[in-house]
């Protein structure tokens, strides 16, 4: 696909998502999904931005929160300036600048991006000439320092935190949008932009240069790749995108303060999402961000925001140890082994089953943790059982994709156990709430078990478990 076609396709998908979200919010008068979707989209941008430096060049940036917060605080500063420009500016510059304020949001986003990009460039210039490790450590320390600066900076209200009153409605073309709808739209556009840039880089000379740095920097340098310049481009670009992702935050939440804005969750998520999704393509961070972002929204609502961070951290550790290629890499390897020429029905079905196992497994673990937090003994037992079944599901999904001989068996077991527990649950509760979903789950489980017993599938797993492992 040409990149212009990709852009058009991505914009079309974006328009579809926006239309859906908007109509849902207008019909149900419930804006929760816009707020939740905004956060997920924000993570799509952050993960993609991180991946430009981390995945393509192989340089780890632990300071996502710093870039993100730089963007956010640049906007706070601009907002404060816009509140009463006359107080801070005087003379001719004031006359020129006064009519510009309040700046429209897209301009503020751009400004946030520029400031963060400059921070990225400066950081990179000081540390990228050394080993990559030093860059990683410096980014880690940078978050602490920028936070100290902001805490001591009274203009943006320091450690008290700054409150910003969200403007009312905004009209975009023929549409009159509420401000959260407007922010959602902007973040959606930003996500499309980030993905388009990432894909463009992947297929350009720049991307090949990045890949050469990742694979062997010394060899790249020796064969004439301008490594420092490329690394600086990557850092600047990645930092700028992160800043742009952070810029709408003050208007989104209405109040920001340093310790949350510089919080570790942003850094962890933006590392975990590409690592779990897969770092070599633009699709990896997208998949990781949508998956983890949505899960976290669910977990924040159902359990607590601390537990969902725990889940992200554990998933990150499990993935870097067990599946360093990420979800996209796992699927690619699976396809290479199971359907070398082109994806067929069998491989598609198996991927669908494996993804289902993965998602259900994680959801199961989240809800089990929720059950474990309640006091009643029966709920604790159910929670423990759910944890076990969730782990079973995750292992089954791994086994299926890795073409292990035990994969189908484990998956059948997991589906069986889930059906049993769903059945007991329904019998216990009288099963009124969410019964249709449970029946659906049971139907999927039975269908999957039947499919896994077909000769076709058995043949595939029998053949590959005896064959030597497939080279990557």
């Amino acid at each position, binding site marked *: 696909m040409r990149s212009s076609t990709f852009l058009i396709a991505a914009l079309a998908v974006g328009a579809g998502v926006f239309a859906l979200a908007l109509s849902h919010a207008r019909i149900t008068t419930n804006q929760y999904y816009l707020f939740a979707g905004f956060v997920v989209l924000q993570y799509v941008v952050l993960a993609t931005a991180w991946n430009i430096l981390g995945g393509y060049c192989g340089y780890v940036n632990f300071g996502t929160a710093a870039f993100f917060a730089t963007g956010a605080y640049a906007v706070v500063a601009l907002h404060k300036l816009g509140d009463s420009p006359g107080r801070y500016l005087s003379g001719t510059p004031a006359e020129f600048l006064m009519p510009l304020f309040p700046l429209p949001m897209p301009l503020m986003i751009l400004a946030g991006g520029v400031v963060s990009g400059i921070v990225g460039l400066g950081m990179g210039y000081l*540390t990228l000439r050394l080993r990559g490790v030093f860059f990683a450590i410096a980014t880690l320390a940078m978050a*602490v320092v920028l*936070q100290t600066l902001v*805490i001591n900076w009274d203009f943006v209200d320091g450690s008290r935190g700054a409150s910003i009153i969200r403007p009312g409605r905004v009209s975009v073309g023929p549409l009159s949008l509420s401000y959260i709808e407007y922010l959602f739209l902007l973040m959606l556009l930003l996500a499309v932009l980030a993905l388009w840039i990432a894909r463009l880089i992947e297929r350009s000379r720049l991307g090949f240069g990045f890949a050469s740095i990742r694979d062997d920097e010394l060899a790249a340098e020796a064969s004439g790749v301008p490594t420092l310049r490329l690394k600086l481009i990557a850092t600047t670009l990645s930092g700028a995108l992160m800043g742009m992702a952070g810029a709408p935050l003050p208007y989104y939440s209405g109040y920001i303060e340093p310790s949350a804005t510089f919080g570790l969750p942003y850094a962890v998520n933006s590392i975990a999402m590409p690592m779990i999704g897969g770092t070599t393509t633009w699709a990896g961070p997208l998949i990781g961000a949508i998956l983890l972002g949505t899960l976290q929204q669910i977990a924040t609502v159902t359990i607590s925001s601390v537990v969902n961070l725990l889940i992200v951290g554990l998933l990150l550790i499990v993935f870097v140890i067990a599946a360093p290629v990420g979800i996209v890499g796992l699927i690619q390897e699976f396809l290479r082994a199971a359907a070398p020429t082109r994806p067929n029905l069998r491989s598609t079905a198996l991927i669908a089953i494996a993804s289902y196992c993965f998602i259900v497994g994680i959801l199961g673990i989240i809800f089990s943790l929720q059950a474990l937090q309640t006091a009643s003994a029966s709920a604790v037992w159910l929670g423990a059982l759910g944890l076990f079944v969730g782990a079973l599901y995750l292992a089954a999904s791994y086994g299926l994709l890795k073409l292990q001989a035990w994969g189908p068996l484990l998956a059948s077991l997991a589906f069986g156990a889930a059906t049993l527990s769903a059945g007991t649950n329904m019998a216990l509760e009288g099963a009124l709430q969410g019964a249709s979903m449970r029946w659906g789950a049971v139907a999927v489980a039975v269908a999957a078990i039947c499919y896994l017993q077909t000769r076709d599938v058995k043949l595939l797993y029998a053949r590959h478990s005896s064959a030597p492992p497939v080279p990557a």
Partner: protein
Amino acid sequence: MSMDLLLNAVVAGLLLGGFYAAVTVGISISFGMLDVVNIAHPAFIILGSYIAYIVNSTTGLDPILTAIVVLPAFYLLGQGVYQVFYLSFEKRGEEALRGLAFFFGLLFVTEVVLILVFGVDYRYVQAGYIGPTWRIGFVDLPLRMLVPCFVSILLVVGLQLFLARTFVGRAIMAVAQDQQALRLLSIDPVRIKRIAFGVSIATAALAGAFLIVIQPVEPSVGREFIGRIFAICVLGGMGSLPGTVIAAMLLGIIESFTATYYGPSWAPAVAFGFLLITLAVRPAGLLGR
């Protein structure tokens, strides 16, 4: 600028630096000698603080004594972590990107688990030397700083003797320079690295106890130390223990001056400036080759 303020700032900085030496010595071994970028080291330090807190609040045992008792447990923990790191990353040659992410995940998970178990309240310990202050002329010597500083210097001297005088210690120093040579001497470099990493994590138990003696602790204070310990480690010349002590004292004095003359809220920024300047001007460190 009055004389006694200046002198007090210098002494406070030296005491703080002694504590920083204990915090950094583990990183000097793991990052400086073994080339394992253990950014989770502060998490182990906080873990040490919390163990000292639990034991102190239940039995009233001295926090530093507690740390000495749990040293073997931390040593084994370190060996375990290194084994996982070795099998999953170093053996496959993927330590650069994924190894860093692994340690970052470890740092994060430890912090979140501590928050889940203990909440975000500040915790502190009781010990006879936490309150009183010695005065020599107009110089204050708070015992809660002096005792950790003293034990910390003992720790570093002990480690230096261990590294320079014993067979295993010398093997650890050698692993930093040439693994092949070790293999030729029929020493297993992985075993040596495992031991060294265990020692490095064991120092975190002590550093954690010092930390909770010096200040109240909550799960996320560990992060403030990441910049400091790596700045000290790099400036100290990556794996030179005497260099580590000198750099730690230097950073301690600079931070103490910043706190005295500009206010304590600026202190965290100092370490980073320190690190950046070190990296930009003299990446080999003070005593580096």
